[in-house]
């Protein structure tokens, strides 16, 4: 499954960014092969409404699950409507750490 992880940098070694809408990067990773694509978030410095806009971006990249720290109400409504599963990761590790926890089923499903 393709999963999206909010990240502070453009590689799987970057730390997970705990904010969703203003995350600098979205790492889109195949949870089986760990091949990935980094997408710079064009809304990271936006004035407002960045949650739903970032959610739309995640959906456009056909992610089935999202790993982030905290997802706001509007973004959550968009992601849940599109059937994206939400997982909370707030341990301060890297994108790769978060994906390993996801594969081990130790991440808490949020909402």
């Amino acid at each position, binding site marked *: 499954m393709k999963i999206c992880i909010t990240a502070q940098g453009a590689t799987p070694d970057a730390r997970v960014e705990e904010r969703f809408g203003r995350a600098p990067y979205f790492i889109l990773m195949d949870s089986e092969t760990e091949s990935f694509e980094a997408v710079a978030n064009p809304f990271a410095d936006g004035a*407002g*409404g960045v949650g*739903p806009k970032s959610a*739309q971006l995640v959906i456009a990249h056909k992610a089935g699950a999202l790993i982030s720290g905290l997802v706001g109400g509007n973004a959550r*409504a968009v992601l849940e409507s599109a059937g994206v599963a939400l997982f909370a990761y707030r341990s301060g590790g890297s994108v790769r750490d978060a994906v390993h926890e996801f594969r081990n089923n130790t991440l808490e499903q949020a909402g």
Partner: protein
Amino acid sequence: MKLAVASGKGGTGKSMVAANLAFTLAWTGNVTLVDCDVEEPNLHLFFPSPATTRDVTVPVPVVDDSLCDRCGKCGEVCQYGAITVLPDRVLFFPELCHSCGGCMLVCPKKAIREEPKRIGTLSCSAPLPGLKLITGTLDAGNPHAVPLIREAKKQAAQDSVVIFDTAPGTSCPVIEALDGCDACVLVTESTPFGLHDLELAVDVAARLDIPAGIIINRSDGEDTDTLRFCTDHDLEVMMTIPFSRDIAAIQNRGDLLCRVRPEWQKDFCALFMKCRSLAGVEQ
């Protein structure tokens, strides 16, 4: 003349100044007092009087699902993230919408129309023979103060002497209230916090190109730092109100300084004359 009373810091005495100025001016002419602090209006407490009240609405989009083909153009044009188009439906977040109408304009299927949505109320009363009071009240939880302030100002557009009591701070609701005014008075107090926020408010007035004068309220009798700031920035201190238990007690029971202590009326008259010259209005 359109005069705004602003402050930066909250609780410095904006409403006290605005209410007493309006009360004093109403003896000799017509004055309109507009409460632009729509998230927490309080001027009606000084002037209890029957009011006529009407709803204020803003237009928000409604999508006709039978016409919409989910092309996504409305979501792309929305700068506020208020519309999200999914493959099978359109999600709308009214609290993010700024009522710009862009979504309706770009929709190729004409599937979007606008409907009015209530954001608050506007009340109008005549508590004294020469005084008109206009109060904007934003509905609790509604984030759109600016269109309500705009509506309150429109209500007073034809009046000759208008005093706008603004919200504290220097954000959008204050900018909207100040915009188009001939002059503003900035009420401060002799504390470090009062001075810090006064500096921000002075900067805002300068950027809006509105002449500003200063009122020092709850003066400690010295006001050293505030006076130095005013001298450095060529700002006139138009009035100084002492830190007084008597004034606080009058204020706390919802009364007016100029009603209980009429000798203050000449000070507020003098303040108004200074505001007129600040605004460049002929005497």
